[in-house]
């Protein structure tokens, strides 16, 4: 820019020598930077590969198709001769399970605690402050180990053979099984093909989304109440019922049952101690950070907004729901994305309680002679994909939430 203003008309004769020409320097500078970065990366990787070759360590990814030869904790259905990539898939699934339930738990608890910190009720506000200060000042690894060992190993729960069983009143079905190793709750089991079920349900969700937009438009044009949540839920529930009946009732409730020898839980949905520890520890830890983000965001909404809401006689709930929170959410979202990403990455600490997520399984497989470098390249790629998909999704949401006028 400066060059162009200094030079009248930009005539060829008046141009400075190329080494002082900003346009040239810019291009050359970027080129050099790119070459240096890639050069260093190439040098590092090449060094690594040649050192590995010298020591006779394989640099190929063929090991992924060799047999795993090991069992996966709490996956008795996993055949020990399955190829290594199938073991990685189990790890990815477990990482996902811990992350998704952790995010849900963190969001719910974080919102409640964050709003409670601003409560006028002395006790509620103090309890929320205590929660935040307690959880955010303890490293997540310590929390995971605490949950794993203080709650399960040394905690109040009975050993497997003496599990607590909560029966459904007036029935033989078990609602809840609890011991110091795994918990069982009722789940669903497929009795037929689920393809038709999912197709109809997906169609239902598309229709519901369409109804949402239609109701919104209707509201914008006429000012009549949109009731879009009601419409949306109604259509989804209706399509669930239609899908279930039309596809021949392919789902059945599966009740957890303790096996004859009292060493196995069959049926139902089973949560093992590692998963529970990781989910709760990370969920509650991240919630303490989210609570602070939400509190700060609410405080960042201008006082005048609340006063205006009071002036038009909105109730306290309405003030939060329609005036304060929608504006606070806009501020809260970007730092919240960071917390979600941290939570996903922190699931790798689950290895401390033997939770079979991708890092733990990879460490096991490396210990058993699989090449460390290639194995961890895959782990890195997995976390990268997880994190990038979260930030991509939430960035889209963030962009849509921002005020158009800003």
């Amino acid at each position, binding site marked *: 820019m400066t060059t162009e203003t200094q030079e009248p008309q930009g005539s060829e004769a008046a141009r400075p020598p190329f080494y002082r020409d900003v346009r040239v320097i810019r291009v050359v500078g970027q080129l050099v930077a790119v070459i240096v970065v*890639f050069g260093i*990366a*190439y040098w590092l*990787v*090449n*060094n690594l*590969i*040649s*050192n*590995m*070759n*010298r*020591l*006779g*360590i*394989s*640099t*190929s990814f063929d*090991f992924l198709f060799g047999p795993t*030869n*090991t*069992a*996966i*904790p*709490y996956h*008795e259905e996993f055949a*020990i001769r399955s190829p290594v990539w199938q073991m990685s898939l189990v790890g990815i699934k477990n990482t996902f399970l811990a992350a998704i339930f952790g995010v849900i738990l963190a969001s719910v608890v974080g919102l409640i605690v964050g709003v409670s910190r601003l409560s006028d009720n002395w006790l509620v506000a103090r309890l929320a402050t205590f929660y935040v200060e307690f959880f955010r000042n303890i490293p997540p690894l310590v929390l995971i180990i605490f949950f794993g*060992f203080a709650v*399960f*190993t*040394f905690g109040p729960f009975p*050993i*497997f053979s003496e599990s607590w069983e909560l029966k459904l009143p007036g029935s033989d079905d078990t609602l809840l099984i609890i011991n*110091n*190793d795994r918990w069982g709750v009722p789940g669903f089991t497929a009795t037929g093909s689920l393809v038709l079920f999912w197709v109809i349900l997906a169609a239902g969700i598309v229709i519901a989304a369409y109804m949402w937009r239609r109701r919104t438009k209707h509201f914008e044009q006429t000012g009549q109440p949109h009731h879009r949540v009601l419409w949306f839920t109604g259509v989804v529930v209706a399509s669930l019922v239609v899908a279930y009946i039309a596809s021949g009732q392919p789902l059945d409730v599966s009740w957890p049952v303790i*096996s004859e*020898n009292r*060493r*196995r839980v069959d049926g139902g949905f089973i949560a093992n*101690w590692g998963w529970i520890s990781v989910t709760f520890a990370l969920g509650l830890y991240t919630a303490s950070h989210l609570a602070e983000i939400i509190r700060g965001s609410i405080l960042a909404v201008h006082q005048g907004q609340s006063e205006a809401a009071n002036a038009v006689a909105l109730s306290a709930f309405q003030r939060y729901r329609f005036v304060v929170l929608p504006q606070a959410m806009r501020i809260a979202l970007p730092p919240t994305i960071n917390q979600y990403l941290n939570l996903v990455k922190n699931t790798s600490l689950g*290895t*401390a309680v*033997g939770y079979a997520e991708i890092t*733990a399984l990879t*460490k*096991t497989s*490396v*210990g*058993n*002679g*699989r*090449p*460390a470098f290639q194995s961890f*390249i895959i782990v890195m790629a997995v976390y*990268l994909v997880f994190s*990038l998909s979260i*930030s*991509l999704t939430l960035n889209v949401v963030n962009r849509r939430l921002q005020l158009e006028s800003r």
Partner: protein
Amino acid sequence: MKITKLLAAFVALMLILAACSSDDDAAATTEAVAGEDGGGDGDTGGKLAAVIAADKIVCGVNDGLPGFGVVDDAGVYNGFDIDFCRVVAAGVLGDADKVEYKPLTADVRFTALQSGDIDLLIRNTTWTATRDGQEGATFLFTVFYDGQGMMVPASTGFTTLEDLADANICVLSGTTTELNLAAVFGARGIPFNSVVFEDNAQLNPAYQEGQCEGWTSDASQLAAFKSAIEGEGGEDQFIMAEIISKEPLGPVVSDGDTEWAQAVEWSVMATVQAWEFGLDSGNIGSYAGDNPNILNFIGTDNFNPGLGLPSDFAVQVVTQVGNYKEIFDRHIPAIGLSLEGGPNNIWTEGGLMYVPPYR
């Protein structure tokens, strides 16, 4: 679209990687020569000289396994494996105390060896084909013949592996034990669930609190923990008679340096040779006989087979640390295992401890 750019960069990096791994050997060798300035450690033929120049041996060990490698209250390393680190230091450097101990977990031990962080790995490490082939490791003389066993609380009355059908079984992650457990139970069709831990400090309480009904590990480790648990007033434990695997444990060095490997191996084997000759820390220094083999062994008249070791290395090893039996008796009976009748006895008494002649 920053993310697209990031992805593109990542893909580019992967492509470079792929290109590198398909490079032929010729390119790799030239690079290896060029890389010597940076690496230094583990280069062909250089380790022995490097160790002597540094005047200490960096030894990767276990710091939480009674009998084999523990740190006592004063911070001193102690144990069967530790003594063999000292044996190598005495043989190569003439002073058993010139060892720097690096405590390692099971899953990083080979990486530490490959990277040259440690010169020597003596950490109850089982010699297997995959480890020999894929970890760039050279396994040397087996100093302890172990086997995997199964421990259960005595009160359960279990005596066979079949009694543990469907049970939770505690095991350390990243060990051959984990593989054997899956292989043996799989072969016999016994369903089970493994509960894995990173180290025994976590596994032990989980087992004692009944989260697992069985604990599988090398028999020597189980014996050590059995005596520890019972000594602390815990429940009585029972180790099943069945041994389900071969676990030869010994020192490990990095591939590609035979000179260093030989120096380590002969230092270690000197302890067995001394035992066979009837020499121990008390009498080796004052040997007055005329057995030519023994005279060679203790380096009389500067007999030196050219292993790169001082001619009196055997004397240093045995006076400073002891012969094999002395080392064994110092650590292993305390954890409930004996030399007699086992595979770790000398070959003349029916054991497997047999070394090539020193001449």
